[in-house]
């Protein structure tokens, strides 16, 4: 017999289209047993505290004595008090530094290199650029406190190039402290973003660039119409990571400025800590905590929306 029909085109198993049914009672039982330990840990140390945070945020409580029900007054305070608004604003200013600098510099490097970093140079680059990711943020804070100190390297460099008048105690300066903190965060995140974007760009098919060049595209066009869309996901990742790092920052500020001078560098994370444990305003601290959580969520959501693979 001839073998003509042995290769029918429908070789896929038909079950792929349908969700595998795993409904049996024993399987469900096993599922719960496997998930339970993680869920208990998560419930005990995340979900429960989160619920308590929401509860505390409705109280006026010093953490020791009787608590009074306070309604939404704490939230009203968070959203109207000028100091607290400035503190929230500080976090969003930090986003500019934490996010823009690493992403823009990373894009510049990626667009320029547009190929895999192979060999020894690649290894050294990766190692060096990842160093800030490996060390504690606290250590980054200390290192840069020293960089920004009056006798530190920043001022030393300024003096060396004849800009002595610019030299100052950066972290104690009402105008410059916040940008200085922003630079610290940018330094920490720069390597990670650069490597993510460089790795991302190697996944773009090089023939796209060749085709574009044949179509008469200028370098700017290549960047705008091939590189940027091709890196959409990686850019999304960088923005997500850096925005969370900025809004939820604590370590760097705590170490480098303690929120000062005044409250020019105070961020919500630090203020929650102060309010709850120094000023004993547990309710207000919790309201700020919930607001911070919501702010992170609504800042991240559009990024995720725009950079997801559209199906």
């Amino acid at each position, binding site marked *: 017999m001839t073998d003509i029909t042995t290769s029918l085109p429908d070789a896929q198993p038909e079950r792929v289209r349908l969700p595998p049914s*795993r409904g049996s009672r024993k*399987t*469900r039982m*096993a*599922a719960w*047993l*496997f*998930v339970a330990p*993680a*869920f208990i*840990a*998560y*419930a005990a*140390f*995340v979900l*429960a505290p*989160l619920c308590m945070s929401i509860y*505390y945020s409705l109280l006026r409580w010093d953490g020791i004595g009787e608590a009074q029900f306070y309604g939404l007054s704490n939230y009203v305070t968070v959203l109207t008090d000028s100091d607290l608004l400035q503190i929230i604003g500080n976090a969003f200013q930090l986003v500019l530094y934490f996010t823009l600098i690493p992403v823009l*510099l990373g894009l*510049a490097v990626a667009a*320029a290199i*547009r*190929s895999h970093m192979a060999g020894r140079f690649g290894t*050294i680059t990766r190692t*060096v*650029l*990842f*160093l*800030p990711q*490996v*060390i*504690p*943020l*606290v*250590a980054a804070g*200390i*290192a*840069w406190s*020293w960089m920004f100190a009056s*006798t*530190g390297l920043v*001022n*030393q460099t300024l003096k060396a190039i004849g800009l002595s008048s610019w030299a100052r105690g950066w972290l104690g300066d009402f105008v410059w402290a916040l940008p200085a903190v922003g630079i610290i965060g940018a*330094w920490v995140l720069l*390597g*990670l973003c*650069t490597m993510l974007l460089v790795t991302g760009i190697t996944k773009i098919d090089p023939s796209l660039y060749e085709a574009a060049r044949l179509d008469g595209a200028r370098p700017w066009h290549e960047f705008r119409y091939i590189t940027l869309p091709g890196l959409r996901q*990686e850019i999304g990742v*960088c923005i997500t990571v850096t925005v969370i790092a900025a809004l939820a920052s*604590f*370590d760097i500020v*705590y*170490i480098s400025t303690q929120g000062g001078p005044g409250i020019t560098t105070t961020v919500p*994370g630090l203020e*929650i*800590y102060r309010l*709850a444990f120094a000023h004993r305003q547990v309710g207000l601290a*919790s309201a700020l*905590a919930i607001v911070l*959580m919501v702010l992170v969520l609504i800042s991240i959501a559009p990024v995720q929306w725009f950079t997801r693979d559209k199906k």
Partner: protein
Amino acid sequence: MKTASPNSLIARGLIIVLMIITLLPFLSMLSAALAPQGTYPNGLQWPSDPQWSNFVRAFEVARMDQLLLSSTLIVMGVVPLSVLIATMAGYGLAKLTSNKYKWLYLVFVFGLTLPFEAVITPLYYEVRALGLLNTRFAIILPLIGLYMPFSVYWMRAHFLNVPHDLTEAAQLDGATRWKEFWLVQVPLARPAIMSLTILLFLWTWNQFLLPVVLVQDPMQRTMAGALGAFQGQWGTDIPLLCAGSLLILAPTVALFLVFQRQFVAALMQGAVKG
């Protein structure tokens, strides 16, 4: 390697500048750490008489041996258990539940963007109620819970990619779910488990907020937490502070240099998936 086009020369230049910017703070700290005690050194200036003994003093002052022990104990308390229960949950969610239970997974994922600050206040009262304040357990137990969203998400993503046929083959071979998990799934998940272990190790070792709030005694803290206390105490003695800081960040940097490839892979995937 490709021949260097002008573009890649610019790129190399840019990268070298970035590397210098990355390294300068470390070099500046090193130069300050070698300056004579009690002096105010300059930003970056190789001292005429490098005081390597500053490191010895910092080691003693910071009680580095105790800190290493404390951090190691905390890591040992957090990482293996977190990885184990997250792997179990990832397997359970990816392989044993139908779409009806997607909500359970979404509950875990909800925690992915949660700033630790959002729960630190109630955690303080919870840990105090448990009588664990100022012990290492005050850091260990909450961290396990706080790591679950990422860890479960990570392991589930891995298990989703394991062909379902393997699970079914194991079922037909007579494996219980528990045996299938240990004999088939865990060996196959080794790379994912390795990366998760590295990430959790780094995050635990470098954890700052929890020790600052929950543990007073620096000797019961993580390295990062202890560094905070060290700065508070010796912040004005720049050479000592810099020497201490370098010592404190040395262990992770050393591990990183040894396992460079694995660390880089873990950090990149960790960012992408997180």
